[in-house]
């Protein structure tokens, strides 16, 4: 194994639905693969089959089905005590051994709402049908609604709104959710945000910078829109702001200004801001179907599974030749 790398991770913040971590000692190709796996390869549950029994609402059956499909569904993984990877308990119907659907491949939700059931008083003109009205018998599966208690207090409705009912209207339907991944349809995507950004590497050419006039230094500090530089009060030299790593956006402004300050064009740069080639800050934000850390864990597991599968295929290939 001559070309092995040993990537390291550091968690920067870990909340229920957002996770930030630093990935370092590896390559941009690994970071990008992880990002793509997070978006397209993590299996989740989503409503895929809807039978509408009665619908007198203002929305069409198809419209409702589409809205139902996009609602995040949580699976409570009892082994890690978090909302996690549903593929531990479920499998996709196409991979299931059963003939026409079983508990391992489909989860059934039922919804039955009448205006009169929900209307609180006579002045009430409309009532909302929300994700809370979808009920299932499965103990570990539920519709996701709020990210935290704070949000629950602010929101007026008690879940994700599906449709509003006016007086005399009702809606009865049965929805079946199944496991899938977002390569098939974006409704299975577990993340709202999955991005990485490069950590900046800044080199200050101290010998060249000391030769500038005080006014030039001030110009340099002011021209950077990210405000990553400041002037040291004691020495009057340019130094880096302590939190420059969070702010640098790699603009060209510094580059152009310092070109005009050089005595000769071939002189060394005064300040160089580069993107690090081995350090990445990931931000993962969940749609509500899983804990953010479980999404990353699941993506890494899928990545390994995929590589092991390719390894097996590749080994089989060289034997065949």
């Amino acid at each position: 194994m001559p070309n092995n790398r040993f990537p390291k991770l550091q968690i920067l913040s870990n909340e229920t639905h957002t996770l930030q971590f630093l990935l370092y000692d590896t390559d941009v190709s690994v970071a990008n693969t992880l990002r793509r796996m997070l978006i397209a390869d993590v299996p989740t549950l989503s409503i895929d089959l809807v039978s509408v029994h009665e619908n007198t609402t203002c929305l069409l059956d198809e419209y409702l089905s589409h809205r139902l499909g996009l609602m995040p569904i949580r699976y409570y993984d009892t082994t890690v005590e978090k909302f996690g990877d549903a593929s531990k308990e479920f499998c996709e119907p196409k991979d299931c051994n059963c003939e026409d659907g079983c508990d391992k491949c489909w989860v059934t939700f039922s919804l039955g709402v009448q205006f009169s059931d929900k209307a609180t008083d006579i002045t009430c003109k409309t009532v909302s049908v929300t994700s809370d009205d979808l009920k299932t018998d499965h103990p570990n599966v539920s519709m996701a609604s709020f990210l935290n208690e704070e949000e629950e207090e602010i929101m007026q409705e008690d879940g994700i709104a599906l449709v509003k009912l006016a007086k005399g209207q009702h809606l009865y339907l049965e929805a079946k959710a199944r496991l899938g991944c977002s390569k098939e349809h974006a409704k299975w995507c577990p993340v709202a945000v999955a991005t990485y950004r490069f950590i900046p590497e800044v080199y200050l050419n101290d010998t060249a910078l000391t030769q500038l006039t005080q006014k030039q230094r001030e110009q340099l500090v002011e021209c950077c829109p990210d405000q990553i530089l400041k002037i040291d009060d004691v020495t009057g030299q340019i130094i880096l702001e302590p939190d420059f790593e969070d702010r640098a956006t790699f603009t060209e402004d510094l580059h152009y200004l310092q070109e005009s300050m050089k005595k000769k064009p071939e002189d060394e740069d005064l300040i160089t801001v580069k993107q690090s080639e081995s350090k990445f800050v990931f931000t993962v934000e969940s749609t509500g179907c899983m804990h953010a850390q479980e999404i990353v864990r699941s993506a890494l597991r899928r990545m390994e599974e995929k590589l092991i599968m390719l390894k097996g295929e590749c080994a089989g290939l060289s034997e065949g030749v």
Partner: protein
Amino acid sequence: MNAPERTAAFTLDEDNDERKITYAPSPQIPNAGTFTFNKEDHTMGNLIRHQLLRNPNVHFCGYMHPHPLIHRIDMKIQTRDGTTNPGDVLLEAIDDLTTECGKLQENFDGALELFQEEQDKGRNM
């Protein structure tokens, strides 16, 4: 009506006996050939290409994804000399990546634990 199945983007066509990887050695260039990864995309293509290029025995490696609706990638590999062939270096690259991915999982769990410990410590102080 004639739209392909959505699952066709990532499941192998078993009716036509589609294989995950096929190999065609180059008729003109020595120690070179094209690997076709069916139902794969940039996710794995770029990862494997980058890993192969870190191997000093690899003279050339490039991949292409012919069209967004054609779900395969073609990867051309040429090795430096006859001591290693494209199949060996590819296997080695994927093997290295698997190890790396295993390490990544371990380190992620470790980092989570460490972060949790620090949080608890901060709370108790």
